[in-house]
């Protein structure tokens, strides 16, 4: 079989990214241009600003990706792009660039689900073992996904309100930390021995999550302390918050892994960069003797390499998009087989 070489493009949020992936796992080149410095001014991602930056960066990023790979368009098998979910205006830049590029060089186009991409970031590290359970935790998502085989997705639990990353970012704002707050809370949490006691939302009998109650508890705690004229200790608040998030995520993931009898558990998405969560999951699954993997940090946050990895399996399964492809901001994760 000849090599499958995929150019992948990702612009669903605030990173303009492109990558070239050979045979679904080998990263030939990987470029990410982040807008964090610009978006920091606003304390979060402003969609219109994100779209403006994507237009400025898109051809530069794709060119750098081809140059680093030392490849020509004629070396490519297909072009892949994130179709959704994400910010619609941002998605449209990647999608229209991908379509124009595919048209110019007569290449097939593959529409990829952003979360499938996060999950397939793991395929860049080692082959995925099925059945598999994926914990997807990012700025916009908190989901437990069961996979019987490649291309098969069943969402067995999801957040009913805030995503884990969103909760991190909001709590960080309460503690006056810059955007994105996740890494700061993570760092602070490790500087405290004891955490403030915050509630856990168990939503028993389901694999669903809820983080808005926890977020409100943190806000109320700060408010009450302020009213009493007492200073909060940010490290202890961060630890209390993180302990609650990590315990719920770990407990539910372990329970699902056992019930579904999976051969591998993976974590994916920006929050899986969290040190507390990584070590808690590692310990728990070592005890359960179920292989657990989490991609290297740079493949946890948004990137195009993961989109290229997922696209390779979609390409093999015959999935194709066309030039009328549109951005789907609320796209659901569906099986492609």
């Amino acid at each position, binding site marked *: 079989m000849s090599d499958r070489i995929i150019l992948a493009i990702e612009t669903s949020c605030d990173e303009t990214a492109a990558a070239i992936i050979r045979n679904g796992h080998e990263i030939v080149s990987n470029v990410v241009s982040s807008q964090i410095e610009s978006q920091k001014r606003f304390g979060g991602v402003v969609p*219109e600003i994100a779209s*403006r930056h994507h237009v400025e960066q898109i051809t*530069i990023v794709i060119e750098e990706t081809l140059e680093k790979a030392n490849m020509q368009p004629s070396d490519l098998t297909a072009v892949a792009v994130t179709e959704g979910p994400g910010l619609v205006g941002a998605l449209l*830049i990647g999608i*229209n660039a991908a*379509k124009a590029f595919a048209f110019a060089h007569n290449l097939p186009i593959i529409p990829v689900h952003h979360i499938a991409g996060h999950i397939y970031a793991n395929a860049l590290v080692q082959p995925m073992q099925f059945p598999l359970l994926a914990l997807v935790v990012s700025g916009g998502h908190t989901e437990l996904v069961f996979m019987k085989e490649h291309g098969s997705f069943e969402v067995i639990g999801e957040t009913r309100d805030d995503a884990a990353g969103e909760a991190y970012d909001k709590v960080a704002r309460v503690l006056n930390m810059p955007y994105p707050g996740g890494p700061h809370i993570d760092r602070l949490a490790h500087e405290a021995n004891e955490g403030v006691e915050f509630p856990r939302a168990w939503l028993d009998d389901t694999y669903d999550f809820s983080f808005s109650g926890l977020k409100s508890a943190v806000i109320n705690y700060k408010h009450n302390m302020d009213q009493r004229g007492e200073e909060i200790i940010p490290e202890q608040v961060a630890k209390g918050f993180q302990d609650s998030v990590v315990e719920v995520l770990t407990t539910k993931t372990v329970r699902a892994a056992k019930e579904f009898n999976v051969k591998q558990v993976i974590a994916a998405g920006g929050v899986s960069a969290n040190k507390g969560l990584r070590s808690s999951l590692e310990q728990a699954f070592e005890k359960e003797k179920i292989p657990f993997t989490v991609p290297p940090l740079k493949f946890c946050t948004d990137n195009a390499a993961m989109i290229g990895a997922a696209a390779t399996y979609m390409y093999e399964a015959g999935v194709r998009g066309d030039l009328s492809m549109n*951005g789907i901001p609320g796209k659901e994760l569906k099986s492609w087989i």
Partner: protein
Amino acid sequence: MIWLGIETSNSPLSIAIVKDGQVLVEIVENVKLTHSVTAMPTIQELFHKAKMKPMDIDAIAVSEGPGSYTGIRIGVTIAKTLAWTLKKPLVGVSSLKVLAANGELFNGIICSLFDARRQNVYAGIYQGTDLETVMEERHTSIDDLLSQLQSLNKPVLFIGSDVENFKENIKEQLGELAIFAPSSITLPRASKLIEVAETKSLPSIEEVHHFVPQYHRLAQAEANWIQDQKKR
């Protein structure tokens, strides 16, 4: 010299391929579909009709704004990507000038405009067949625009599908001097876009990367942020 022209800056869509000053194919649509869905298939269809391959073109012209932010970005992204990957020069033309070009035979002042909501417009003022700029394209209140036009004291041709929204106001201010373009010339044409682009000098291929839309307005969040900085 073969040109591809792309105009998606507002809800109408227009694409054209022009060879040595002759229009080979052109499409003008006003059915309010999403450009993201229709623009690329239309481009593909026109290449097919012109019996051409993407590589056959020599330059690309794109309407660079102002207009709908998303609309402009779709056209500019497609144009930039094609120009970069096919190694062809990319020329941007103001979407207001493209519209004004529809009235270039009018002997007087031409004012093209788009509704920018809350009694504001994006507008340009031009004069003569070579569309000499009388007022740079800008975001302005309709009242300021009309008083500027009044001070010129000449007949003014208004072009744009949004002119309708301000018709009463315009008549009140300019009376007999206001002339309204017939609806058959209120849609932007990619062939006109190319015509204007041909009067400009061709930029180098390297400049494609730095091509950006002309929004003529800051994003709201950025405007607020700048205000905040000033207060500090």
